């Protein structure tokens, strides 16, 4: 087990090595996207929405977007990223000639997307805190929430990778799954307005639970209650999705 972890860590470190080579290019969209949405919607649209659940729109948007970076970075990493490494670059094929096996590759992917999601959501949160768009008291929980959301969304990406026949098909997954996940996660508006059946569907979204936890943390508003309600759901969804992603992708690496 110790050796498996150590070998998986080498896979994670490979991805980190590649990532940091183009660090500025890689990190800028992940950080700038949420920050510009916060600026554009928060200041622009926020001029019309002065009170949403008792807060300015800017403050309302902030936590959800911090958590959403975990979704984006994880999904892209295990969909397009995985597919390119697997099919075009043969990175895993070469790794498989070393003591690294399929288990370590998948575990290394999960570690990488989890840590990346944690780091990204933390990065955005630090910017938010600098601009006083959140309460620092529970901010330390954001990377943990980001880690779990990224694992779950990374698993969705791996499941997608196991189904697509060519790289263009990820666009369909993006259009019909990831986009609604993002827009109906409670980031942009409270979900109590939407029809009941959509609310029920949203309960199956790891991002929704992550966003609700992030909001409770950064607003410092009912964090304990949110933890009791959304924490178990986020854990459960992550614990369900990760093994499914594992089982789906394993035969692609070893058959």
């Amino acid at each position, binding site marked *: 087990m110790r*050796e498996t972890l150590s*070998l998986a860590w*080498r*896979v994670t*470190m*490979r991805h980190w*090595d*590649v990532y940091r*080579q183009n660090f500025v290019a890689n990190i800028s969209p992940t950080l700038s996207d949420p920050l510009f949405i916060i600026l554009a919607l928060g200041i622009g649209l926020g001029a019309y929405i002065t009170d949403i659940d008792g807060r300015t729109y800017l403050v309302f948007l902030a936590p959800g977007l911090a958590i959403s970076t975990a979704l984006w970075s994880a999904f892209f990493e295990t969909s397009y990223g995985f597919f390119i490494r697997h099919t075009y*670059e*043969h*990175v895993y*094929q*070469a*790794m*498989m*000639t*070393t*003591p*690294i*096996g399929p288990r370590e590759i998948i575990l290394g992917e999960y570690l990488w997307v989890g840590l990346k999601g944690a780091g990204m959501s933390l990065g955005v949160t630090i910017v938010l805190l600098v601009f006083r768009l959140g309460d620092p008291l529970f901010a330390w929980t954001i990377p943990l929430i980001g880690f779990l959301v990224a694992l779950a969304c990374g698993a969705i990406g791996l499941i997608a990778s196991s189904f697509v026949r060519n790289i263009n098909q990820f666009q369909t997954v993006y259009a019909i799954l990831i986009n609604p996940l993002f827009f109906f996660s409670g980031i942009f508006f409270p979900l109590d307005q939407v029809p009941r059946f959509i609310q029920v569907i949203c309960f199956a979204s790891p991002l929704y639970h992550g966003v609700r936890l992030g909001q409770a943390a950064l607003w410092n508003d009912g964090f304990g209650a949110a933890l009791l309600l959304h924490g178990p759901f986020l854990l459960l969804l992550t614990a369900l999705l990760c093994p499914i992603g594992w089982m789906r992708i394993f035969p692609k690496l*070893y*058959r």
Partner: protein
Amino acid sequence: MKATEMNSLSNDASGSPVVEAKDLRKNFGSVQAVRGASFSIARGECFGLLGPNGAGKSTAIRILYGATSRSGGSLTVFGLDPAREAREIKKRLGVVTQENALDEDMGVRANMMMYARCVGLPRADRGKRVDELLGAMSLDHRSNARIRDLSGGMQRRLVFVRALLRQPGLLVLDEPTTGLDPAVRLHMWERVRELKDTGTTILLTTHYMDEAERLCDRLVIMNEGEIKAEGAPREMIERYCPGTVAVFPKEAGLRERLVTAAAENPDFSWFEDRAGINVRGPGLAAVESFLGHHGMIPRILRPSTLEDVFLEITGRELGGDA
């Protein structure tokens, strides 16, 4: 792990084979890629696995290093089963993969440093080992180059470096010189011979019969997932198509004369391929006297090669998968 290491060490010492495959099988759905291959590779030997495209060579090799499961039969590498102990096997294995599969996202040295970490070289030794091998493969001056800026030959040499990072007990070469120019191939062959001289066991697949003839102590020819022939290169030439071949241009009148002449003498046979019309006889003197007797001058007169054996066994026609 200690026990496994000791176990495999004692295996080596007792001279049992490094690789032993018995009735190895692999099915992909309804396709039988390997249909019962049996072979063994002795320690220190250079063993060739030849066959046309789609013969099942690469699949057999991938099973060997645990990148693919087997559907049947038994297989041990260093006395271990790749289905259960691939990790331990791969600690002692170097693989020159058919595709370079170099990490395009990293430079030359960074690539090798990453793989040095993957194969588990201690941190303190990585830099030294990588630089030493880059030097040996004449790549040290391109340490910081990007992969795509290297020539095909350089990329291939870098794959060699990757395979040698851990001083493998068994080096697997999957079509190591395909697409390379003659100078680079010669350079590769020298390196392979050096490795062999230091006691490295080598498993080679190739489409180049001259390569197999030069490097292999023993080889098998696979076709359609089965092993069709086995032996040392010279021995196989003697067994399957000994003698000398005279090659003639493809002309209808000439073909008739040749076929008739060959039919008169049981020591002679003929076949036609892309090179022309070929007449094979038992030796240079016999073929010369045969040709003199019939007043025919060939375009080429050459000894039989492993290529003749290969074509004899696998057929001269292009198969469905070729």
